């Protein structure tokens, strides 16, 4: 767009500003709410400027057992649970998808394409669809209330397998032949050539999958009954319900802030690789 019409410029900026407000305002209110004490948050009108209770709230939220008078675990433990689940899901998904894409692209075995399509149609079977049988399996395996139970049923990924397949297909055949002449076996080729070449794609996928894992709600809700295994996303909902009188908004909002933090850190720290991984086609 190289148009120079003041009215259009004004309109586009207006839309942009409105969009920024729509996204930023709830976060601002969350931040403000997390910086006042409980009493102030119960009064009307709601404050629009930050108060002086941020550190106090942070300390009570992280280490003070969350809400007073409930059996909810301290928030640092929930953060740790969420982190463990998100890491296990993203790392697990990436390793399994890398290996299955490697098998499908570089090995000739009977029913190779059948395997690929089998993996592909699992796209149509997300957790929500198979939730009862999956719960049954996890329960029978005794994995309720464990990190394994939280992550393993979510680990297989058709999308990631498909993506790595496409990445591997762009790597010229000569690369494999050259490695064969150099004497590299299949796993050596995988480690020394394929992995470094798909580095940016792995990073991009990690960002997406970490957020996917971090935001899991339905599945952790089903299989964790022990308060010490609760993830942070679920705890926010529980805090709302657990309150005997009015909800303690300052603590709940602080928890929400803390829940937003890790995904933001992951996105910011891997931003460069993320963009490269989604746009770079040159091998």
């Amino acid at each position, binding site marked *: 767009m190289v148009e120079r019409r003041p009215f259009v410029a004004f309109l586009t900026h207006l839309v942009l500003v409105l969009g920024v407000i729509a996204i930023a305002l709830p976060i601002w209110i969350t931040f403000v709410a997390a910086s006042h004490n409980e009493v102030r948050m119960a009064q009307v009108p709601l404050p629009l400027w930050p108060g002086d209770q941020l550190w106090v709230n942070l300390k009570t939220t992280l280490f003070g057992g969350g809400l007073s008078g409930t059996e909810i675990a301290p928030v640092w433990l929930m953060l740790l649970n969420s982190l463990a689940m998100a890491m296990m899901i993203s790392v697990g998904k990436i390793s399994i998808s890398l290996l299955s894409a490697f098998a499908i692209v570089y090995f000739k075995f009977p029913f190779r394409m059948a395997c690929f399509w089998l993996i592909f149609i699992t796209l149509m079977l997300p957790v929500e669809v198979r939730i009862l049988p999956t719960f049954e399996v996890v329960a029978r395996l005794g994995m309720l209330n464990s990190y394994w139970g939280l992550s393993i049923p979510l680990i297989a990924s058709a999308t990631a397998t498909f993506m790595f397949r496409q990445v591997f297909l762009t790597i010229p055949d000569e690369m494999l032949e050259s490695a064969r002449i150099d004497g590299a076996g299949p796993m050596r080729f995988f480690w020394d050539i394929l992995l470094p*070449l798909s580095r940016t794609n792995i990073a991009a996928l990690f960002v997406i999958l970490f957020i996917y894992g971090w935001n899991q709600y339905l599945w952790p809700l089903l299989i964790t009954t022990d308060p010490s295994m609760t993830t942070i996303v679920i705890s926010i909902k529980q805090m709302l319900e657990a309150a005997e009188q009015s909800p303690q908004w300052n603590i709940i909002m602080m928890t929400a802030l803390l829940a937003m933090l890790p995904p933001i850190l992951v996105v910011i720290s891997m931003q460069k690789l993320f963009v490269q991984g989604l746009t770079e086609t040159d091998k």
Partner: protein
Amino acid sequence: MAGINLVDLTKSYGDTRVLHHIEGAIDDGEFIVIVGPSGCGKSTLLRMIAGLETVTSGEVFIGERKVNDLEPAHRDIAMVFQNYALYPHMSVAQNMAYGLKIRKLPKPEIDRRVREAADILEIGEYLDRKPRQLSGGQRQRVAMGRAIVRDPQVFLFDEPLSNLDAKLRVQMRLEIRKLQQRLGVTSIYVTHDQVEAMTLGDRLMVLNGGYVEQFGTPVELYQRPASVFVAGFIGSPAMNFMTVTAANGTLTLANGAIIACPVSYSGEALLGVRPENLTADADGPMRLVVEMVEQLGANTLVHGRLEGMDSELVASLPGIANVDPGAVLGFSAPGDALHLFDTQMQKRLEP
């Protein structure tokens, strides 16, 4: 060092046979060029020697060893690919060292070999760079460096110069030749460029449609082409062909002109004469109606048709010759420059 022996080699993909009964003995230290049009099977043949394609039937020997069932890594070969196939995430030095690292050579030995190869190829100052930071010619050198450090019995080149511009190609061609002579390693080089083939090869294997048309030195191929295909493929501009009737020691063109016959043969035949072997001769039997003239400076190419016939003819006159389109010129050719081929079999007729 080792020679290579190809014994009755064939290759089929399903029911399609792409190589037919290839035979060839290559001496130790020889530079062989496999040349032919695209799709003739030349790359497939090279890849069979490398071990990247399976052998359908026949045998491949490197030295005394039959290598049919050996992995490429165990054949003691090195290959230079058309697109270089350098590992993009490794530096030049790591690219060259990778094969040696896998073979678990001691670190100082690897460093020594890489340094040595880099000196030979004059890429010492690029050792720490990534392939993407190099120009086409430099990548080509790195690809060759990777072959040299392995110190193999055989070098295989798969059209290594086709991604370079014309000037660089001529320069690299000479360098490859010099390098091969210096190292004395048996080499097989695949190309579709007949000039490249003629300048590089000790011997040329001309492939067409999966068959070996001729296997010989460049001069043999030029002077005594074994088939119409080789005659037309080798030499530029291409050889002229015309149908003739041979009888009683003479050849009669369709327009009645008579040429002395170099071989004892009678019947229909195909006569081939190279443009550069035609000499202007006012009384010559081949009378050319000029249609177009190309002035190349060193020589002049005269395009036209034989008088009273449809056959096209090109003559190459030395220096700058002033010829006008429409003129009729007479040409003759010495007896040893006349090539006679069987019309059916397309093979050379020998005296």
